């Protein structure tokens, strides 16, 4: 027995030895830094498959013990950095390990192509503007295009609707919703009256306003595209009522987990408003309008999204408009009565989906619109209609390192009709386009975006091929430079095509250089540009220059026009210096001349103002839950036609300038809650100083019938004006943000 008894004793030291070495811990230590050797405190350093690990201290150092033996896999993770994996040998006297982590691509350390793009987006952090800014800005009257007109590159033209960008006319800007061109984004154009946009700002989650050099995904716009992306879900649920001096509306929203529906209806009549605010327009029938819309969204799967939007509206109005060119005995002032009944139907539906964890993306859409104006112009039928159907599909493939490539195509069929002096014109255009564009990151500091777009228009039987190229280089942690170049084509204005389909595309070439720095809620941005216009349509009327904005081009036309635009703009926004105060300043300068339309010589067009300045301020006063915004705009004088100067002299033609236009506008909104219902009250004053702004001058005959002797001014629809209204959300869950006001 003794040996047996002894044996365990003999074994004890051995066993103890084993158990000692088994629990003998190896210490793993080292330091974690970024690529430049700066300490990364808070990194998680551990051995895969074990609980053993530690967090790095303020010097980036770590130290932990493990019972693991021989080999293990060391894993280092740190928020915002790529994970680090390395097999290590576990030895009692192991040397400290130094680990360098690589930062993941993010908005701060990766360059973005910004030349020519001005985005208002929820999704991207590095944008200068948020969608909410559109509705909270005084002077924009919650109108998307009016807000865009306060941005750098835009020029304000008070008596016409649309967006005029860098020497371009309003016809050179296209409005695009979810990729689909909107045929009639504004209420029907009236002579010398600015019409509002048809769409509510709250429909959109993101807006991108291009000042040129835009993506190959879009075309048919010589100057600019305004890209609007609709929201993916309802904001409120329940019934809403709005009432203001111009209209009354009802809305109802309902959402379920995978779908949502919104319906709106409104009726408006401007009679009460016009009774309170003196009008400079001679209305024979105050505008009256009624409309409705329906939005339906469905998420059929985790990745898919179907959206449908449809709207219909009716509007009526009548006005007397002065056209000296139509003066006759008995109607010496050339007063013309215009009556209009507009009907507009617009529908768009899109489907988006993605596969392979978002590496493949699909965007498809279908849109149909029908718009008709029953117009009588001086008792003659001046009716018109337009009908556009379009389909579009884009496939995007995301590649590694932020790079991507996309392919797409679109097809439109457009039918236009116009009655002029008893003649019925009609044309039909089948338009198709295909495009390829790639975003290619050489490094996080340098990106290229080459693209090409091919287009065909059946009405003129012409093709075009438009190359585009953008690049961006990051110059610092918060700053970058971008460059954009591109060719842009547009089918000539349909009014020319009614009488001449032998015309070719008009063309513009853009070159844009951009610098921006965004740091700590302050943004500075400067952009310089050069635009070349070619193949612009010229008219040879054989008659004196006609200033009537409703004129129809009767003369011979060709593509011999040309021109240029050059200039720069500056933008500064500061949301930091004064707590609670947000302000921004823009300055735009443009120098441009063109030979086009009826011009006999190269001249600065009548819609151009060389200098545009805007100052926007807003502040929310929490104690009284009131948001206040003040906007000042300055627009330098614009050329106007003086018939007493020779129209064929480059020195004389359009050499006169109107006085500058100044406007101070104010808006305030207040919100309160009673019995669970949310109420928003708002008031605004436009042209607070009651400036007698002048947009252009025209000439009429004097009392003795001598033509072009009396100059008269065309100004805004009203001088100082005010507007009040309110909104009630009949829902206990209605939530409103302070800045929605």
């Amino acid at each position, binding site marked *: 027995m003794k040996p047996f008894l002894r044996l365990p004793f003999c074994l004890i030291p051995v066993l103890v030895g084993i158990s000692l070495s088994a629990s003998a811990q190896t210490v793993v230590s080292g330091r974690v830094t970024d690529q430049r050797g700066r300490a990364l*405190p*808070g990194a998680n350093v551990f051995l895969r498959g074990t609980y053993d*690990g530690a*967090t790095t201290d303020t010097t980036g150092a770590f130290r932990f013990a493990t019972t693991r033996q021989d080999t293990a896999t060391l894993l280092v993770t740190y*928020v915002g950095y790529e994970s680090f994996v390395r097999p290590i040998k576990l030895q009692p006297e192991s040397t400290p390990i130094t680990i360098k982590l690589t930062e993941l691509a993010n908005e701060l350390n990766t360059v973005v192509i910004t030349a020519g793009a001005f985005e208002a987006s929820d999704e991207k952090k590095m944008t200068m503007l948020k969608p909410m800014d559109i509705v909270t800005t005084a002077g924009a009257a919650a109108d998307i295009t009016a807000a865009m007109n306060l941005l750098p590159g835009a020029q304000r033209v008070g008596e016409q609707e649309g967006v005029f960008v860098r020497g371009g006319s309003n016809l050179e800007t296209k409005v695009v919703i979810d990729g689909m061109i909107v045929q009639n984004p504004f209420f029907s154009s009236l002579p010398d009256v600015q019409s509002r946009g048809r769409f509510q700002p709250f429909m959109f*989650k993101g807006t991108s306003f291009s000042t040129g050099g835009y993506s190959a995904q879009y075309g048919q716009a010589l100057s600019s595209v305004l890209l609007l992306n609709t929201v993916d879900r309802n904001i409120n649920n329940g019934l809403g009522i709005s009432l203001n001096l111009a209209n009354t509306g009802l809305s109802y929203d309902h959402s379920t987990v995978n779908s949502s529906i919104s319906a709106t209806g409104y009726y408006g009549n401007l009679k009460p408003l016009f009774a309170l605010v003196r009008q400079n327009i001679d209305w024979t029938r105050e505008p009256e309008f009624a409309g409705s819309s329906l939005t339906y969204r469905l998420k059929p799967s985790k990745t898919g999204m179907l959206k449908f939007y449809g709207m219909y509206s009716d509007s009526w109005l009548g006005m007397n408009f002065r056209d000296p060119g139509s003066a006759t005995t008995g109607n010496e002032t050339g007063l013309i009565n215009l009556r209009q009944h507009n009907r507009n139907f617009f529908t768009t539906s899109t489907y988006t989906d993605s596969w392979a964890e978002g590496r493949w993306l699909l965007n498809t859409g279908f849109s149909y619109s029908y718009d008709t104006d029953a117009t009588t112009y001086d008792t003659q039928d001046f009716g018109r209609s337009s009908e556009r159907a379009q389909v579009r599909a884009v496939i995007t493939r995301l590649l590694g390192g932020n790079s991507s490539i996309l392919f797409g195509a679109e097809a439109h069929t457009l039918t236009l009709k116009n009655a002029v002096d008893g003649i019925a014109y009609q044309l039909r255009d089948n338009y198709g386009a295909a495009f390829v564009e790639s975003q290619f990151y050489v490094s996080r500091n340098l990106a290229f975006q080459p693209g090409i777009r091919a287009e065909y228009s059946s009405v003129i039987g012409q093709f075009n091929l438009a190359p585009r190229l953008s690049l961006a280089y990051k110059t610092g942690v918060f700053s970058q430079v971008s460059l954009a170049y591109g060719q842009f084509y547009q089918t000539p204005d349909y009014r020319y095509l009614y009488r001449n389909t032998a015309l070719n595309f008009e063309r513009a070439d853009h070159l844009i250089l951009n610098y921006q720095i965004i740091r700590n809620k302050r943004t500075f941005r400067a952009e310089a540009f050069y635009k070349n216009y070619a193949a612009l349509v010229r008219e040879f009327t054989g008659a004196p220059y006609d200033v009537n904005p409703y004129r129809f081009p009767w003369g011979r036309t060709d593509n011999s026009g040309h021109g240029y635009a050059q200039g720069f703009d500056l933008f500064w926004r500061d949301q930091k210096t004064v707590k609670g105060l947000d302000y921004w300043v823009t300055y735009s300068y443009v120098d441009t001349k063109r030979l086009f339309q009826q011009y006999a010589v190269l001249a600065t067009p009548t819609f151009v103002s060389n200098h545009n300045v805007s100052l926007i301020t807003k502040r929310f006063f929490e104690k009284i839950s009131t948001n206040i915004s003040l906007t000042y705009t300055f627009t330098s004088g614009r050329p106007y036609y003086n018939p007493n100067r020779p129209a064929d002299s480059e020195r004389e033609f359009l050499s006169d300038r109107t006085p500058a236009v100044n406007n101070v506008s104010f808006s305030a909104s207040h919100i309160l809650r009673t019995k669970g219902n949310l109420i928003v009250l708002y008031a605004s004053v436009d042209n607070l100083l009651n400036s007698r702004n002048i947009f252009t001058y025209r000439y009429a005959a004097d009392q003795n019938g001598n033509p072009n002797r009396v100059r008269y001014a065309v100004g805004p629809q009203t001088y100082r004006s005010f507007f009040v209204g309110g909104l009630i959300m009949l829902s206990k869950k209605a939530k409103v943000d302070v800045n929605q006001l």
Partner: protein
Amino acid sequence: MKTLLTSILILLFANVVPVHAQSDQYKQAMTDALNKMKTQSEKTPVPDMLAMANQFERIAGVETKEWLPRYYAGLMYVYLGFMGKDETEKDKFLDQADTNLKAALAMAPDNDELAVLKAYIAQSRMVVDPTNRWQQYGPLFQAGLEKAKSLNPNNPRPYVLEGTSLMYTPVQFGGGADAACPVLKQAAEKFATFKPASDLHPMWGKEQIEPMLTKCPK
């Protein structure tokens, strides 16, 4: 045959049971981590909070069938989302909270506590930039709360988040003590009866609402 079947069954259980059964090592590691977590507060420095999150993530790395370590790691990152030095850092932390939530949801898709966490992340995202984010994250916050309530009507934590959010929302926007108190009281009532499934399951919220309840009429 019978013995064969029995031995197969034994083998099966021998393999399956230990995988599902929580190891003592896991329980111990979680208990240690949770005890440490209880000493944290809003005054805890960011590096210490990160160390806490790292500890849970290390456990999660080993225990790939347990949703709790991921849940707590996500919760730590939600706190960090309130603490980050600027918007970018806050969002980075919340991205990591989302990563942990996603991993936890893959294990327990219909869990009330994870629905609460989802709502909490949405709330923290919103707080980063309320002006521009309420539209996107407000509905997500609500949806998370609704889901948690429907999955487990007895869970007090959706009421904690809802009540706290209401308390700090100005009266004009539908918040204030009048709106918050009934919800906070509901939370307090539910805490009185709520029993967590184990010592490792979420228990937070009671202390958080107590100072707010003192502002409520009795």
